[in-house]
């Protein structure tokens, strides 16, 4: 693995290796001394073109636990010529000797471009409406920890699939790991080309819930209303929100997940978000373990593959 750009091209063996490695990392979190010398002397740059304290902090904690040097490079605000600044920034990072660049960018594919401009490893920390691979890996990790497996599980993803990088990464990864994925959304919030995805599509949340081992709620941005994706917040919530009554339709063991930040009352009721079946809090802790695993697998060896390719 040279880069982690998407889960669409992540093979089963690699995906399992990340999850298994994350398991080991999670145990380190239980040790009295949580810091490992593994990546001493390596430099990880957090290159964030969008605000995301949550994701950036998670990567930062992960890198620091592995003793890497962390540079936070906030490139937000250069809105006029983002294109120029991305390549210029890449050259700056090269000069700094970044071993890994963790990149969050509003444009789909920006980390792909970055990977062609820098020698170090690029980790996609969310690009536009394309992918967010470490979020999907931590979701898969969380499911496996709670339910013991992924193979054969029925996972339902609900909400703004069209604009969701989390949904895309989860669809590919969970399918690779053997889960059956169903997406539920108003038709306006599904991509027209979804027929090419390995998913079932439903417009009826209540019929899908009883058959779901995992229900993953996506954030719905209120500004979508103005673009006529759905009429009103209330109508959306009535048809696609996960309230207590709907949650009661789920099997007893079933999990409720949310990548955060949540819009309580819109896509998810507080009572559901805070219920024992909710994994929202452990998703955060697991995020650190998974990101440690990714950084270790990218930077923990000689990188001989990278030099030769």
């Amino acid at each position: 693995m040279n880069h982690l750009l998407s889960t669409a091209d992540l093979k089963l063996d690699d995906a399992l290796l990340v999850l298994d490695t994350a398991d080991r990392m999670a145990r380190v979190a239980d040790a009295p001394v949580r810091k490992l010398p593994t990546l001493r002397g390596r430099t990880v740059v957090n290159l964030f073109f969008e605000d995301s304290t949550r994701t950036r902090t998670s990567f930062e904690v992960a890198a620091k636990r592995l003793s890497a040097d962390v540079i936070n490079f906030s490139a937000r605000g250069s809105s006029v010529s983002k294109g120029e600044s991305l390549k210029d920034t890449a050259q700056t990072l090269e000069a700094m000797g970044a071993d890994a660049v963790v990149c969050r960018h509003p444009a789909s594919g920006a980390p792909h471009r970055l990977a062609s401009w820098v020698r170090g490893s690029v980790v996609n920390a969310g690009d536009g409406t394309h992918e967010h691979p470490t979020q999907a890996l931590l979701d898969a990790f969380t499911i496996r920890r709670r339910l013991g497996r992924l193979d054969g599980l029925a996972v339902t993803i609900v909400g703004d699939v069209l604009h969701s990088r989390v949904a895309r990464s989860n669809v590919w990864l969970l399918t690779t790991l053997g889960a059956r994925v169903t997406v539920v959304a108003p038709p306006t919030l599904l991509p027209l080309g979804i027929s090419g995805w390995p998913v079932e599509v439903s417009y009826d949340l209540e019929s899908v819930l009883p058959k779901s081992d995992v229900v993953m709620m996506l954030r719905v941005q209120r500004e979508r209303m103005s673009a006529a994706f759905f009429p009103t917040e209330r109508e959306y919530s009535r048809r696609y929100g996960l309230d207590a009554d709907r949650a009661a339709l789920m099997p007893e063991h079933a999990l409720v997940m949310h990548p955060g930040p949540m819009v309580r009352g819109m896509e998810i009721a507080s009572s559901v978000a805070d219920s024992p079946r909710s994994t929202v809090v452990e998703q955060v802790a697991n995020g650190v373990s998974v990101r440690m695993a990714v950084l270790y697998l990218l930077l923990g060896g000689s990188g001989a593959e990278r030099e030769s390719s």
Partner: protein
Amino acid sequence: MTSVIVVRGVRPLGGDARDLVIADGTIAAVAPAGGGERTGVVAEAAAGSADGTRPAPLVVDATGLVALPGLVDLHTHLREPGREDAETVDSGTRAAALGGYTTVFAMANTDPVADTAGVVEQVWRLGQDAGHCDVRPVGAVTRGLAGERLAELGAMASSAAAVRMFSDDGHCVSDALLMRRALEYVKAFDGVIAQHAEEPRLTAGAQMNEGAMAARLGLPGWPAVAEEAIIARDALLTGHVGSRLHICHVSTAGSVELIRWAKAKGWRVTAEVTPHHLLLTEELVASYDPVYKVNPPLRTEADTEALRAGLADGTIDCVATDHAPHASEDKETEWAAARPGMLGLETALSIVIQTMVETGRLDWAGVADRMALAPARIGAVADMPRDPASFAQVGVPATLTLLDPEARRVIDPLAVASRSSNTPYGGRTLPGAIRATFLRGRPTVLDGKII
């Protein structure tokens, strides 16, 4: 006095080898292969050179080469005035001549926009000065391409540039009433409106063809219906007001069907397809390399197939390059920030050979029609013969290009004549190479190099 030129052993439209003798800008004699130097014109010139009154005849060995009429491109972005860092009239027309072109239509989306007689005359004169091929400016339909008020179409038509084609290319004339008025207005001087068919509301923020690839790549989709809806509307308007409509860069199978329908109605609708839409498909976008970003976007395999069929049966009248040079800072970016467009002039004929000739869909006469005669008719280019065969007959202007159909060349983006390097064919091996181009008897390219 220019020298007499003997083009020896060339095969017009791939037919039998001939010697063409060019004098005073026209084809002065046609002889069987090897006989050109024995014609009276050459003998006279040779005698004149012996006593120093005339230059010696120039012999061009064209054995094995195919002669085609000089190619005509209805859709070129020369970027001058305004973005001379990306292309100039001089550099763009060099690229054109090297690609076998003798006339290019320069699109209006310059800075300032070509929406007045002054700007179109400036572009026209720059073309005359460069001398590599004829430059026919396209006038803007609306002032500043803003889609609000008509530009001075009549003034541009009666200017020295004699504009006949008008287009807001890059933008769609989306207002139906404005489009109707434009179509009506240009009837006065037999003008044609070249429409960039793109319903703007359906393509807000669009980045690539809408479909499975866009869904996977997380890029906002540019649906085929946004093109097709405008074509349908404008075909109806054209039929209604009895004017001439030309559809730029047709990119979808549905568009081909609509144009076929409009033509069957007897309406005067013509259409062009770009080389890249004949060959390339949306799968290339998976690299997120903006060298593949273009508007309209690369479509699917089924679309390229329909476009090839439409070009073969004449539903699509011609090939036009939509040559769109961009400076590297506008391409070496993330996908969304990059400007759309690809180079095309130097590779267009090769792509047509690969997609249409090698597949048996067009013969050389067909290529001559789709790349020279038909666009000349649509753009009202004078001096173009009515049928493909007559371009190499005695008495017609010697405006032609010589192609080595057996040549194979690897495209190096950094070795193109254009000032920009945004060719999507970098590293590909393409068939065919232009060896010489003549504009009214004057060589603009010899031995594959600009004169």
